[in-house]
């Protein structure tokens, strides 16, 4: 009989049958997985961590385990090889980080909760999705004029803040209806594109504890004022850490508005598995040329990052162009969307 999963020494890698089954199903070679259990036993978590290219992760757990670990030698010398084997991405060179404390004082904080979730999402998105960024400027002079007038009138009422974001959400929803590719998801396993016929727009909110993306549902049937009110409510809940889970799920498109904090331009990372994300820079008064004249206008820099598997540059140019047109003329925005 063959003696599967045996190490160099001939003895099989200690791992429970269920763990071995998991490794087999995930295509992980158990002899390469450093075990963190007693006696070097490989746990299901070790297999998962290994698969996630988490040789680093495992490494740190190991150094914290005092017991002599049979596989430790293998792990230390072969981390690079392990990681490469795990990801099978040529030239991807995952090495344990150097001990920074040798260079100067450091403080170590474990990756927890929101930070860790953000890390997972971003790595998945960046590794999986071929990102392309398309940029344009929207002249929002008239829109701002209209918005500030309305805001002054509605001040103090719920939804009365009438932020620029709520207008952008409105305009984006109109754009998505015309260009369904940007309101879709690509399923790489089934090799299908799923076009969603509902419009749930998420907006990135800074909570102090990390990034949260509250979702506003059904933006195609809500008024700008309703949208504005929901933004206020959900952003407040998110800051208090009280936003219910379902209000962070089901998004079809995300907008990140770092403008109020500053920045002339940004390239956002797609909120996977969505297809696109819109980044809003800071609205600034800028000298622009109109009909051969230099005039001062309020300019909103926009970047659409999109999944090039689903849409092409020309699609993005049309999508953003339409958005810029709608935002530059409040009449158009109110009339057509």
């Amino acid at each position, binding site marked *: 009989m063959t003696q599967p999963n045996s190490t160099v020494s001939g003895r099989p890698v200690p*791992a429970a*049958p269920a763990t071995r089954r998991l490794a087999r199903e995930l*295509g992980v070679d158990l002899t390469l997985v450093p075990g963190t259990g007693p006696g070097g036993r490989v746990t299901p978590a070790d297999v998962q961590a290994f698969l996630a290219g988490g040789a680093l992760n495992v490494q740190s757990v190991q150094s914290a385990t005092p017991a002599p670990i049979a596989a430790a030698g293998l792990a230390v010398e072969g981390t690079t090889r392990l990681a490469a084997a795990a990801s099978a991405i040529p030239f991807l060179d995952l090495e344990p980080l150097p001990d920074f404390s040798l260079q100067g004082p450091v403080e170590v904080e474990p990756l927890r909760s929101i930070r860790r979730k953000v890390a997972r999402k971003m790595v998945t998105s960046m590794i999986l999705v071929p990102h392309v960024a398309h940029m344009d400027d929207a002249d929002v002079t008239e829109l701002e004029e209209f918005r500030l007038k309305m805001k002054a009138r509605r001040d103090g009422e719920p939804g009365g803040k009438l932020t620029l974001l709520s207008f952008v959400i409105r305009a984006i929803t109109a754009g998505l209806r015309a260009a369904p590719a940007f309101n879709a998801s690509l399923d790489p396993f089934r090799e299908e594109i799923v076009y969603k016929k509902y419009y749930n727009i998420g907006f990135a909110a800074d909570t102090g504890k990390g990034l949260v993306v509250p979702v506003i549902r059904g933006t195609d049937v809500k008024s700008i004022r309703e949208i504005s009110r929901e933004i206020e409510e959900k952003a407040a809940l998110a800051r208090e850490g009280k936003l219910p889970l379902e209000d962070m799920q089901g998004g079809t498109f995300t907008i990140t508005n770092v403008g109020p904090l500053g920045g002339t331009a940004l390239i956002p990372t797609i909120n996977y598995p969505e297809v696109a994300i819109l980044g809003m820079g800071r609205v600034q008064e800028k000298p622009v040329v109109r009909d051969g004249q230099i005039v001062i206008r309020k300019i909103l820099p926009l970047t659409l990052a999109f999944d090039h598997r689903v849409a092409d540059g020309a699609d993005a140019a049309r999508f953003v162009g339409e958005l810029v047109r709608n935002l530059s003329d409040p009449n158009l925005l109110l009339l057509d969307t």
Partner: protein
Amino acid sequence: MVMGSLNTEVEVVVIGSGPGGYVAALRLADLGKEVMVVEERERPGGVCLLEGCIPSKSLINAIELSEAAKGAARLGLTFTGMKIDHVKLREWTDGVVAQLSGGVKTLLQKRGVDIVHGRARFQDSHSLAIEGGGTIAFKQCIIATGSSLNRLPAGIDQSVWSSADALKLQEVPGSLLVVGGGYIGLELGLVYAGLGSEVSVVEFFPRLLMGADHDLVDVMVKQVSKRLHAVMTDSKVKGIEPRDGGFDVEIEHEGKTEKQHYDRVLVAIGRRPNTDDIGLEHTKVKVDDKGVIETDGECRTAEPHIYAIGDVSHGPMLAHKASREGKVAAESIAGHKVEFDNRAIPAVVFTDPEISWCGLTERRAEELGVTVNVGRFPLSALGRARAIGHTEGLVKVLSEPETDLILGVGIVGPHASELIAEGALAIEMGATLADLTETIHPHPTLSEALMEAAEMAAGTAVHVFKRS
């Protein structure tokens, strides 16, 4: 049951309905496959159920009861007038077999698995010819034809008993010679000794139960020798001649040949896979010179759509190994990622006392040149063993010195067959000594011995005398 003469096409055909074949067929059916089983015997269940594990254990149980009754006098229990009615015992055993075989048949039928009655041979790598007419074309096939008794060397009379004959319990001979000191010979020899025959065992090798560790075998041999007329090791049977309704047997020992007369001779000298006459030459399936079919970790033969499991493939000829392989093959056919990657196939000898072991043995460790830590615990130090009056026996645990990983377990003593399952679980789980010592074992039971043996290996035992 579908009878002979048919030409049909099926997704998967399983040849043989033993513990390998029927388990594979049931699993396949559950996985949504269209399955057919071909079985040449009238009843399903294979050697294990019809003329192996089950009837032998049924008989052994009866003998153990009678031996226990005989030994109970020291506890103040006397049974008078006890006698064994071997005809009644045979009927009981037949009943057990019939029930279980019927159960297998119902299980197969309830899942819609057709049983084709007849002998199957490959015509080519995608079809079988069924003796008596008919062919079955298949997409995938599992060979689970099991094994039969090694053919006797020339010059030996063919009317001697096989294990199947012995299990029929037709008569209780005055004297019986068992040729072969493996587990089958010993188990059946003890049955007949218990029934009243004068039983001798002859073994070619210097020891009985060649595969097992000496310390375990020695304990058992010491006990069973009391019930046997003679145990001849290092001895060779040169000839068996029928005479006076019995047999004259020539046995060579240390260069000298002696002739002895026995009423009956039981030959249990190993088994050979049933692969010689099933048409494998019409396929690319590879078979070695012992008749064993070469397979990979998924039980696939050299023809990837033909699988081989149980006694026809590598490894110990044991029913539970056959069944596990049956599941692996079935799941592989259904596209699951599976492998027969078991580290512990328990071996059990149902002598009195029983012997069992799994994983690494001390013998094997020596052969491999691997250093192991051995913790032994004698049953004489165990409360329950004392209470039931069976202190002959021991449990040992082999562990890896650097890691304390449990590599092997060996047991001799009452219920060794039941106790070994915990050892198998420990090895499969990659358990360490601490996992065993820190698991509470119920008191007073024999299962404590395994925990204690682990304590011995770990150096934390309290129930043994220590030199201070």
